[in-house]
């Protein structure tokens, strides 16, 4: 993963991706390119494979034992399924935020520094620096700076989710995958996360699964529409929402099904 490759502006190049859960094919021949410093939204009805797709990008999907994968995903030109790729490192470069906030039952401090610590960073000064930068970047610093030793489960749902974002940022990833990050949150907390996503795309590439088309419309640059494991349409968000090329996309967006 050399630095020159980054300049192409393409982060992910997905080529002919197939995925099976046992006998069931969940992803069928997906081809798409994901761009740097953009927010890419992945939408579609439940069970369409959008979550599976995103979890394939950092190979989390492989934690399910029956999964089989075909095709390739190039990350900065390198196939992530290649033997030489270390999954652990891939996941530090491609962070992930989940549907339900899942901080560890530890202090706020320990949560943010989980990544750096497990990856061998022991310098206390570096720790403090990472802590502050990550929490600030996740727009949480002001709310928690006086209670860094408190348990993360004392935070509100929205704060917990921002803590999870801070935790992901602490290892300085390039990409952040978000799997319906606001579905468990109230509207105000959702608003904060959306604002945050807008700021984060300055420094990171964000791929977000969402069940809310309004959310996709508000925050994303590009939108991919999945249906029954297939990528139906992938284009600029404005184009998808104003003038979709495919009938299925239009049906979905206008609420005729899903």
């Amino acid at each position: 993963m050399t630095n020159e490759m980054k300049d192409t502006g393409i982060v992910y190049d997905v080529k002919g991706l197939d995925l099976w859960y046992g006998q069931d094919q969940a992803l069928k021949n997906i081809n798409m390119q994901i761009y740097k410093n953009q927010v890419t939204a992945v939408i579609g009805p439940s069970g369409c494979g959008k979550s599976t797709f995103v979890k394939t990008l950092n190979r989390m999907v492989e934690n399910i034992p029956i999964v089989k994968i075909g095709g390739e995903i190039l990350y900065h030109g390198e196939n992530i399924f290649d033997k030489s790729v270390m999954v652990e490192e891939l996941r530090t470069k491609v962070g992930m935020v989940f549907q339900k906030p899942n901080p560890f039952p530890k202090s706020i401090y320990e949560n943010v520094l989980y990544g750096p610590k497990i990856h061998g960073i022991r310098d206390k000064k570096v720790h403090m620096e990472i802590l502050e930068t990550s929490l600030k970047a996740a727009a949480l610093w002001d709310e928690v700076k006086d209670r860094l030793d408190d348990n993360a489960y004392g935070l509100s749902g929205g704060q917990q989710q921002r803590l999870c974002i801070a935790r992901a940022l602490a290892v300085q990833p390039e990409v952040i995958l978000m799997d319906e990050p606001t579905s468990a949150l109230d509207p105000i907390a959702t608003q904060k996360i959306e604002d945050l996503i807008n700021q984060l795309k300055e420094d990171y590439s964000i791929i977000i699964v969402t069940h809310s088309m309004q959310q996709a419309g508000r925050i994303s640059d590009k939108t991919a529409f999945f249906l029954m494991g297939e990528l139906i349409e992938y284009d600029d968000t404005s184009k998808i929402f104003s003038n979709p090329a495919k009938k299925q996309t239009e049906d979905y967006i206008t609420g005729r099904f899903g």
Partner: protein
Amino acid sequence: MENQMKIAAKGAMASRKRENLHFSINRSNISKRVRRNNFYRVLFSLSTVFAIGMLMILLYQVWIDSVGWLTPGFLTRNLSIFPEKAGIHGAILGTVYLMLVVIPVTILLGVATAIYLEEYATKGRIAAFIRTNITNLASVPSVIFGLLGLAVFGRLLGLGSSILAGGLTLSLLVLPIVVVAAQEALRAVPGFLREGSYAMGASKWTTIWRVVLPVALPGVLTGGILAVSRAIGETAPLVVLGIPTLIMRIPKSLGDDFTALPIQIYYWTLDTVLTREYANLAAATIVVLLIVLFMMNSVAIVIRNKYQRRF
């Protein structure tokens, strides 16, 4: 399926009966059935009362027998052939030393086994075999563990009837309890915490060590305490190992001979034939043993309630 049909058929029959009854129904029949219901409710509740009553009688009886004998001196004196001068200092120390062997050995082996079965070898024949083995091991009578200890630790390894031999024997005996409790505790750790760790690029072991185990710890500890309290009261394996009762010396190392609280109770109970006062000594020792067990179980309950996390 078959059973479901049977039950459905039974239900249908019952309702058909009722339909027939519909015409001949009379109040005396209903009140008879209600009275019968009440009679059996009381009768069945008496079973519970009986069990609990027996517990109360047992505790009361032991307490009555120990009154006047359970003195501070009883705890600090050593054995004596004169009942009034006898104490259980040596037995208390022996039990403490035994636990110094049992606690680390069972917790380490038990947790390691549980992690292996729950996290690494979830499928496969070897894991299934180990699982079956643990289930069956849990039901082997404790006296047979005594025979194993006698043959392997006592004779083969030459540990005789030392603390180490006794401790290792008891460890193997209660190992299944820790394994099963730890397995349950590990299984109860929610998947989203593991996911959160993997997503940070943590390896499997890092995830287990840093996230899964700390969350499972209260459950593991509760199981550990239950196992240890089982070990504290175990008598048969130690008797089979040949733990002598007349140890006047205080054990100083794990290789020394020793006596323990349950052993002391055993021999004093047997000696009641000779001197009635030995029953009082046995009862006083039982009270000490039960207080220790009660405290340990209270700690286990406190841990379980305090750290039981709902995600």
